[in-house]
């Protein structure tokens, strides 16, 4: 496996579990720790769950593209979708210490992503949404050079 992963998912929630297997294999092949792999999978899950659940107002099939690659001492993951433009980073974080009395049910997923990743970034790009996350990894050998389509 090369230092990059490129996966096209259908906009269906069960696709997230399939992606988790691919990310797990990608991470293990590049010596990423189980913690980094877990956090990467959780962050991708949260972003993708929101995209698949809320970004589309039609019943058509849509491709959601996920890229992951090693970038120096960091692993980078991107979710690229053609849903309605939305910047999840504008969501106010939940008041965790308020416990059960916290207002509203929203924001928890994005809060986890921001907590688990080192950097997160959203940009609209040619009528698509691109959400990029980076996380420092302890291991990981060789940076990617070629694109390896899977899925």
């Amino acid at each position, binding site marked *: 496996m090369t230092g990059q992963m490129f996966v096209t998912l259908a906009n269906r*929630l*069960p696709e*997230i*579990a399939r992606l*988790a297997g691919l990310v797990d294999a990608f991470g293990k092949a590049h010596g990423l720790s*189980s*913690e980094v792999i*877990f956090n990467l*999978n*959780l962050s991708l*899950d*949260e972003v993708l*769950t*929101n995209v698949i*659940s*809320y*970004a589309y*107002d039609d019943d058509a099939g849509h491709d959601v593209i996920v890229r992951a690659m090693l970038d120096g001492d960091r692993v980078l993951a991107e979710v690229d979708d053609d849903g*309605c*433009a*939305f*910047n*999840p980073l*504008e*969501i*106010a974080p939940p008041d*965790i*210490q*308020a*416990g*059960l009395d916290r207002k509203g*049910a*929203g*924001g*928890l*997923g*994005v*809060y*986890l992503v921001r*907590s*688990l990743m080192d950097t997160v970034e959203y940009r*609209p790009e040619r*009528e698509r949404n691109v959400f990029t996350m980076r996380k420092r990894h302890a291991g990981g050998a060789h940076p990617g050079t070629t694109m390896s389509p899977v899925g």
Partner: protein
Amino acid sequence: MQAERTRGRRCPPWDEPGRHRKDWNVEFRSLEDRGVLVIGVSGRLDSTTSGALEKEVRRQLGTGHARIVFDLSALEYISSAGLRVFMMAAREVRGKGSLAMAGPTPHVRQVLDLAGVATFAKMYDTATEAVEALNQSSH
């Protein structure tokens, strides 16, 4: 905060509880131990499986259970969708019972800690310890 909608299409709210679809990536096992309901959850608890757990928890709550332990020792993965089920259960038993988490793996524990689960449920190393603690607190 409402985000920008640059393409003019109706944009549903972000990050609300997702649609639920049952699949077989998760398993639940419920048993009663000294009057405490222990729900063992194994596998992946995410947006596709949390609905099944929610259904099971609501069914058990409907039978009058108010002291509940989630045994997470075999839980491999949890997302915010799973956390919301725990919050729902905690709200339902608030004032009439208690909720505890037992045996989460380090990765799952990290997510529980980030989400502030300790603000509404106590943590124990094993389900047995949790059952004993809930029993003692009820006497």
